[in-house]
């Protein structure tokens, strides 16, 4: 049960955090100038968007949950299972960012789910 909670936090909080940062960056605007000063200006602009802070907070929860589960579970189980973030990412991309998720991407996500199931079943 403890594992399920940690995995849920890593996958849901981590991916939601990335989605929030993605939304914040879309609001900030596309980056065209990659000179250090221009990048610094973009970062400062992004810091004024509330989604950046929500995203960073959620990603922090995800990171500490990863540390938590690594204290008692094998890395060779934890990291492959976190690939479930592709599923949460696709759902979030579809419903939160309004992206289209095509058949090929759905096939990839289905393969990830099958793989994660085998990784969990292969626990010994």
């Amino acid at each position, binding site marked *: 049960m403890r594992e399920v909670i940690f995995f849920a936090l890593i996958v849901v909080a981590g991916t939601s955090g990335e989605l929030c940062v993605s939304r914040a960056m879309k609001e900030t605007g596309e980056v065209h100038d990659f000179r250090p000063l221009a990048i610094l200006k973009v970062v400062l602009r992004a810091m004024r968007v509330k989604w950046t802070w929500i995203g960073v907070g959620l990603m922090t929860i995800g990171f500490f949950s990863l540390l938590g589960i690594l204290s008692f579970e094998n890395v060779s189980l934890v990291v492959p299972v976190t690939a479930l973030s592709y599923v949460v990412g696709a759902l979030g991309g579809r419903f939160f960012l309004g992206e289209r*998720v095509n058949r090929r991407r759905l096939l990839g996500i289905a393969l990830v789910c099958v793989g994660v199931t085998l990784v969990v079943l*292969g626990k010994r």
Partner: protein
Amino acid sequence: MESHKRLHLKTFLMIGIMVLAGPLGNVLLGKGMKTIGPVTATSPADVLHLLARVLTTGYIWMGIASLLTFFLAYMLVLSWADYSFVQPSSAFSYVVVATLSVVLLGEVVSPLRWLGIAIICLGVFVVGRTRPSTTENR
């Protein structure tokens, strides 16, 4: 022609760093957390004590440094190479993390788990071969 070759070399070097540094970072975090032991924080004081132990564990900092190296290589390679090329290449990192877990941490990976990891790699590869942007025509 020469600059084309150099760009290829630079891209594969960066992807090589990504595929090694990301998994190595996770393995080092795992090693660090195993030295701390199972997390059982029940009070705010316990949480603070745990946080202090995490932040004073060398392996954790090495892990964070390795993950930052991964992130830097990822950002750099994305500045000249296509996301749709870089992302599928990084799918291979799931095999690397399992291999490093076996070699560096002595974990035992069952054949079924190896099969699962291979299918995850394939899935991530397929996801990465889709178009990176789907909303530009709306």
